[in-house]
């Protein structure tokens, strides 16, 4: 047996309860080539495919000599590649990326700055089993999270996994969002994920426009370097009293800011108050955020509703948020998506009224009338504008 020159690197998870993941240990060797040891619950169906793929990934990583032990729990190829790469990196065997060994999934149209963002489904960046079917539940966006849902010791592995998912997983028509870590760690996240062209990056714990500018500049540089032409929008998350007070400056820090959102757990902690289902304690912050967003021409997006079992509470929260001027919110479970979409949709009565107003306006325009009226009521220009926006939004939702 060859002597190992450094310590082994390990990544991933295995065990009876683990699904769609694999644990990979890479032990460096001085010579002797690659020795791959595989234990897999799908060995008889994909054993050969797994060995072939692992050899390809190691080749791309320029790892020539190592003993690789794999406990596979049905990991899909993009997961397996990520675990092998993370383990090899932890063994200090490589700094290369094996992302190019994965086939690219079809990408939806580039995302428009003002696209519909009613719901974004959070997917913990170290839990690959949730990735693959997330888009089936039709959120407006999926958000691969590298921040709070990932243990500090797993940041490096999650970054690789999320990068692979951005390339290989078909997220359908969903906008592909990534929540990076707080700076400066977040900049390392960008290095890994930007080449795979996410549609939007959430910047957590933003407190000043400089942070947005830094992220924006880093993305711009990486886009140029990797030839990415699709837009990559920014959604700063305001999670502190200072962040809220800087809302306007943050929203206008870059033309790539498409929306502002709020993180209520951290915000209420910063205030030293309890977070309640009614949300009175964050009323000011949320109102301030909405106002700053509208003043800057970007979307205002609400936080998440944490109690998955309380659908009534979720609906109430969502309707209230819409009434305040928010255009969407986060979802922590696919079961929340329909209720959120319902909450952020205008009612049929509102749509009908808005359609009548727009029709009356167009008729007045044709007749060259300066004053628009509907029945016995005169309609002011801002009412027409609001009706137009509502109709446009309803059309995006397929409701008008």
């Amino acid at each position, binding site marked *: 047996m060859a002597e190992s020159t450094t310590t082994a690197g390990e990544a991933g998870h295995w065990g009876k309860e683990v*699904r*769609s993941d694999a644990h990979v240990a890479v032990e460096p060797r001085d010579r002797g080539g690659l020795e791959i040891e595989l234990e897999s*619950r*799908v060995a*008889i*169906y*994909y*054993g*050969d*495919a797994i060995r072939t*793929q692992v050899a390809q990934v190691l080749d791309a990583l320029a790892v020539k000599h190592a003993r690789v032990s794999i406990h596979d*729990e*049905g*990991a*899909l*190829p993009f997961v397996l590649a990520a675990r092998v790469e993370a383990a090899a990196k932890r063994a200090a065997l490589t700094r290369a990326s094996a992302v190019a060994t994965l086939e690219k999934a079809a990408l939806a149209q580039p995302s428009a700055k003002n696209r519909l963002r009613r719901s974004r489904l959070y997917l913990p960046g170290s839990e690959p089993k949730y990735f*693959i*079917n997330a888009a*089936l*539940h039709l959120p407006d966006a999926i958000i691969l999270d590298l921040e709070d849902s990932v243990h500090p010791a797993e940041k490096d592995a999650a970054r690789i996994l999320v990068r692979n998912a951005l390339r290989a997983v*078909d997220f359908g028509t969903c906008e592909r969002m990534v929540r990076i870590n707080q700076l400066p760690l977040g900049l390392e996240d960008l290095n890994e994920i930007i080449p795979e062209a996410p549609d939007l990056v959430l910047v957590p714990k933003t407190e000043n426009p400089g942070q947005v500018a830094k992220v924006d500049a880093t993305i711009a540089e990486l886009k140029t370097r990797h030839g990415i032409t699709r837009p990559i929008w920014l959604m700063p998350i305001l999670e502190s009293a200072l962040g809220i007070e800087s809302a306007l400056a943050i929203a206008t820090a870059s033309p790539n800011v498409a929306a502002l959102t709020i993180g209520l757990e951290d915000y209420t902690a910063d205030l030293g108050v309890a977070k309640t289902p009614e949300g009175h304690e964050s009323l000011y912050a949320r109102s301030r955020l909405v106002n700053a967003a509208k003043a800057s021409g970007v979307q205002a997006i609400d936080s998440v509703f944490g109690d998955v079992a309380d659908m009534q509470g979720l609906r109430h929260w969502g309707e209230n948020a819409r009434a305040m001027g928010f255009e969407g919110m986060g979802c922590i*479970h*696919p*079961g929340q998506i329909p209720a959120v979409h319902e909450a952020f949709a205008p009612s049929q009565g509102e749509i009908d009224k808005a359609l009548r107003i727009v029709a009356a306006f167009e008729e007045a325009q044709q007749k060259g009338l300066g004053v628009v009226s509907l029945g016995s009521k005169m309609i002011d220009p801002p009412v027409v504008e609001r009706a137009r926006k509502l109709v446009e939004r309803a059309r995006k939702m397929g409701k008008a």
Partner: protein
Amino acid sequence: MNDRIELARNAAGRMTPVVVNGKPQTPYLGVGKYQPTGSKAAPPIRSNRDYPRNGDKRVADLETALRHCGLRGGMVISSHHHLRDGDRVALLALEAAAKVGVKDLLWFPSASFPSQKGAIELMDKGVIHHIEGSMNGPLGDYCTQGKMRGMGVLRSHGGRWQAIQDGDVHIDIAVIAAPTADAFGNADGSHGKSACGSLGFALADSTYADRVIVVTDNLVPFPCIPWQIQGNNVDCVVEADSIGDPAKIVSGTTQITRSPDRLRIAEFVARFLRQSGIMRNGFSFQAGAGGIALAFVDYLRRMMKEDGVKARFVRGGSTRYLVELLQDGLTDYILDGQTFDLDGVKSIASDPRHIASSPFTSYNYHGKGNFASMVDAVVLGATEVDVNFNANVVTHSDGRLLHGIGGWQNCLDAGCTILALPSFRDRIPVIVDEVTTLTGPGELIDVVATERGIAVNPRRQDLLDAVKGSDLPIRPIQDIKAEVERICGGKPARPKRSTRPVAVVKWVDGTVLDTVWQVA
């Protein structure tokens, strides 16, 4: 076992043994093609002069009862699974038989469960020759590893009744676990500390076996009311401290799946019934106790309420969710084949609209019709389905025995048969080129509902027309298959298997549908 077993290709293109456990077999001929002839089997004539006039048939214990019933080597002993994984009686009976000193018994359970793995030791010792009945877990592995001396024979619930009626299996001694019984042998499952609901699986045995033993842990003075098993068919009654572990007999509550993907499948199925017009006043459906099936019932209940639709009857496996339908006035009756949770047991004991049915009324091929073909829709699971809608429910895709057939094959006779399945499990695609073990012919399987879309069998143009223009994601089955193979990184390799048969799968009519091969 002889390794050179003669095989023949049946109408489904499967190679099946010509002789099984010394008995010549009819290979599967096609759905509805096999025409049985002759007369039904019958037990020997008994006379009431040989039984106590005071009706007290109690004997000291199971060993005495078996001796009294003339237990000899090579006999067929039957047992039943209404106590499910909590059953103690079957093993107690087989162990008592071992004490009597007999060998080479054929154990004929209506289903076996992992807690009965003690049967392996009895097979090793030669007490049991082989098992004809569903096997999974350790017993399934024992069989598929080729360690059993005889060949396993897997039958549906209806097929078991058929086999008893046409003499394919002659039961020498039936041992029936009874949650309540009297000394005459009248027995019922709805009351007692081990209450389990219906005893329907034991009914055939009680009428066709040479000898019948009732074992109870709740002896009541005559009469045991109600009685599902008639004491007039019973030879001996044995009192036991406990016939089973109540925690494993019924679950406290059956659980709806929490997986968003599986909920999505359940919702698709409910919407399919609604939008195809199958869900209408007076309709009927059957759903089991699996997580997806329960969630389906919950979705359908809401849709029935919204549309003001009431079912004439629903068929179980009864659970809390079916009981709620009954209590909410959304169905007139529950026709219950087996009772899965405490709500079901309570309901069957107290609500006259909740009826205990049996494989005879529901599933039997030799009946003058049965209920299965009168059910409008049934929702079932499967381990694999192929592009021609043939399905496998008995083995893993690696060939190891996984599930019994249960009522699954019989249910395929419903007006609309729906398989509700995730499109892959642990990277293993569920839609395949060819199923490992054919359990249900594709011509009887109408819809495959997965989280990635719903495939309708092209043979059912009427169903395709009925959902045309709906917002349901109707897709060709090949499309879903191709998408899943992309996700999983290509087609799975075909597991290698031996050429040695270890069990056969019977079709509902008693013909041989497919073979289970030894796994290394």
